[in-house]
């Protein structure tokens, strides 16, 4: 006997449309989100939160990158970014962008590069 089918393909575009209320990409505050941006929760999940929001907040008790979140939640980057923008606006999470490579037009900070190098040499 086959398992009951969901009315729509759960990985399909309909699901993304419902999740984001039809928004196609993050605006304003979250438009600079990067795949390596770290997300950290500022609150515990609230009762009655939409499932995906709750899962983001729960998974990000420790900092997790946007890329890891997309993989764990099975959502494309642009859809996840819309949800993260909502949580950022509501103050439920913090986002920390990767340390920029170009600091005021120069290359990356030498101290940072040395820290990366020391970490790699310990591997």
């Amino acid at each position, binding site marked *: 006997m086959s398992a009951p089918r969901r009315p729509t393909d759960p990985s399909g*575009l309909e699901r993304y449309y419902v999740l984001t209320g039809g928004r196609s990409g993050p605006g304003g*505050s979250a*438009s*600079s*989100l*990067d*795949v*390596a*941006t*770290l997300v*950290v929760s500022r609150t515990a999940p609230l009762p009655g939160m939409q499932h995906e929001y709750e899962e983001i907040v729960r998974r990000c*008790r*420790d*900092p997790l*990158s946007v*890329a*890891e979140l*997309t*993989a*764990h939640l099975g959502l*494309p*980057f*642009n859809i996840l*970014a819309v949800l993260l923008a909502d949580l*950022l606006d509501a103050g439920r*999470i*913090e*986002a*920390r*962008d*990767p*340390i*920029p*490579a170009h600091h005021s037009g*120069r*290359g*990356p*900070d*030498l101290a*940072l*590069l*040395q*820290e*990366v*190098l*020391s*970490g*790699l*040499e310990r*591997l």
Partner: protein
Amino acid sequence: MDLKGFDHPGDPGAGGTRSVKVMIAGGFGTGKTTMVRSVSDIKPLTTEETLTQATVGVDNLIGVADKSETTVSLDFGKISLNESLMLYLFGTPGQERFWFLWNGLFKGALGAIVLVDTRRLASSFRAIEEMERQNVPFVIALNVFPDCKEHPIEEIRDALDISPHTPIVACDARDRASSRDVLIALISHLKERSAVALEPR
């Protein structure tokens, strides 16, 4: 640093964790995913992006005109450099035309490793051009496949038209230590560039 109002500098604990990213580029089948796998602390993950029909039309994909959805994936891994610094490694999709899908994939990257299969040098031309166009500092890593002949590095530099300032190293992408050494070569290269930039003119 632009903290965009979401961050609380000085927050103790987990909030202090920072990230840096390095891109692994190169032609199809040059070993990008293999390198991510060999050097990552976590089981490598994949993030997927779906192109809808509308996007496909705009992007004019040869050979996929009949598909309403196309999935493009980005493999990535992570290395904990210390308690508060994470290095994320992203193996870029071989089809460079999809790089736009991830919000400025190379923006904010420290630099890139461009993998080259010495049997098929041409397959990495596009990736090299793209790094130069986007002004991303990079090193070339010759992934030494078991059946390749020895290739003198300077010959390959000429063939790929690589600047004398860009390091070329040989590696075995399957080997963790060898992949790590390529990362070390990249970061050392970045340090030299930064040191030069800091010198008074």
